[in-house]
């Protein structure tokens, strides 16, 4: 049973996307990679649920083209 929310769950998605990109502004690639890593850890801890996290990891990996 899938638990990962894949339908739109973010209020004002365009706002979020813009903030995400802007958060990286002025950072080198290495600094951005570090920020992304911190962000993933913070969000993963917020989610907590192992099933959701596993599904998110698999979904992200599968989406590689």
């Amino acid at each position: 049973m899938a638990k990962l929310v894949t339908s739109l769950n973010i209020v004002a998605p365009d706002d979020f996307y813009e903030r995400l990109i802007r958060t990286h502004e002025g950072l080198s690639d290495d600094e951005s990679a570090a920020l992304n890593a911190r962000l993933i850890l913070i969000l993963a801890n917020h989610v907590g649920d192992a099933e959701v996290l596993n599904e998110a990891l698999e979904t992200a990996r599968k989406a590689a083209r």
Partner: protein
Amino acid sequence: MLQDRYSLAFRLYPYQRSADQDAPTPVRHPVVVGGGGPIGLAMALDLGRQGIPVVVLDDHEGIGQGSRAICFSKRSLEIADRYGCGDAMLEKGVVWNVGKVFHDDRQVFEFNLLPEQGHKYPAFINLQQPYFERFLFEQIEAERARGAPIEIRGRNRIDAVEDKGNGVELTVMTPDGPYTLQADWLIACDGANSPIRGMLGLDFEGRVFQDSFLIADITMKSASFPTERWFWFEPWFKSGASTLLHKQPDDVWRVDFQIGWDIDRKEEMKPENIRRRLDAMLGADVEYDIVWSSIYTFQCRRMRKFHHDRVIFAGDSAHQVSPFGARGANSGMQDVDNLGWKLGLVIKGQAPGTLIDSYNEERIHGADENILNSTRATDFITPKSKTSHVFRNAVLDLAEDLPFARSLVNSGRLSVPCTYDGLSLNGPDQLKGGPARTRPGSACPDVPLEDGYLLNRLGDGFVFLTIDADAPESIEDDGMTARHVALTTMDDPSGALAERYLGTAKSAVYLIRPDQHVAARWDHFDDAALRKALRKARGKD
């Protein structure tokens, strides 16, 4: 023909010619232990205390130099205490609770092991391996004086092993030349490079970690540090990709630098180069002496099976882990604890030979848990890809402010005994509301009693422990006696007994194995159920 592989810290069992060397036909012994390190000595002690004759063959005449394993866990001390030498170790050892983790030049966080109250032994002591071995040896001497049939033969090197189906034949090299010896059982405690494993052509597979570590044991002359475990990731002083500082007895400090894979060992071992790293870390004005140094690499691997007919592997010969988490010698001690009583019962005819299969099952379970934990710690300490490194440092960057990230910092998950969940010897768990930590398969946690500690009361035979429940004084089943240890919650005013063994239950009956692991538990005494579990725990099902 017999060459020293290392120099000795203590010369304890000089070569003496044995009558076996002059016997016209090979003499047969019930048990031969190959290797006189900590695991071999503990094995001999366990069996000898049961009255089972043991011959230990060691190619040296005593205990090797160098601190090596320095961190001994509560469980190892409890096992040693069962053998009678836990107190001597505790007295010599350094007890520590506080650890600090640094990244570069800043402290990421500090932890306190905050040991649970009401245990005879602390979570850990630091003690140089030669002392640990010497206490075991001294206990062997004490047991011998009481008649325990233990013999240690120095400068006896096993050169060949032949599997004879119901026993083994050994070719043993001595300063007087070779002789032949037979044994019903051979216990290989001959370390990670186990020559016995090699002679039998057995596998030892796992992961190689491409990193080297430089150990320097130093005594400080002009400065000191607190009795704490300090661990640096990417330290500012650049003496290694990680560095560990930890205190040992005799005012010796263990410093452990991660120095990379592609190194010139000989060059790195030069005193001036070791001093260069130490000076950068300690400051040029700090004076110290280097007591011992060594470079090591490691692998995380195990044998597919620890039990091959009449040859049984225990300790590093069977499984090897990284040092992070203190899971090497400590897991070897649990091997001995597990194998000792089983082999004892089999040799005395009180259990079927198949009971030894449960050693394989339970200790592989333990080894896999140790390998998993130590591999994870190693991957955190020595990230092997750029992304892994980025995530590791992200954890460290967050750990200072965010509590969740501290839990992800892994500089070694410290050794705790494994629980044999769902394995063959376990009986029923019929204690409603019973604590999870004492479910069948668990090592019994200690409890303070008015006149001592619970684990001392359990001793080393089969025991049924009752708490506020009636039961007969002992039970005999098929030639085996299980002792009754009767307690009430009044025996422990601190409440730990109730908390650790009753939970929300009003009464409890535990069947406990000679290695102090729980075999089964109920809320009341039921003769038939207990006998059934007692048979199951001896592999008689």
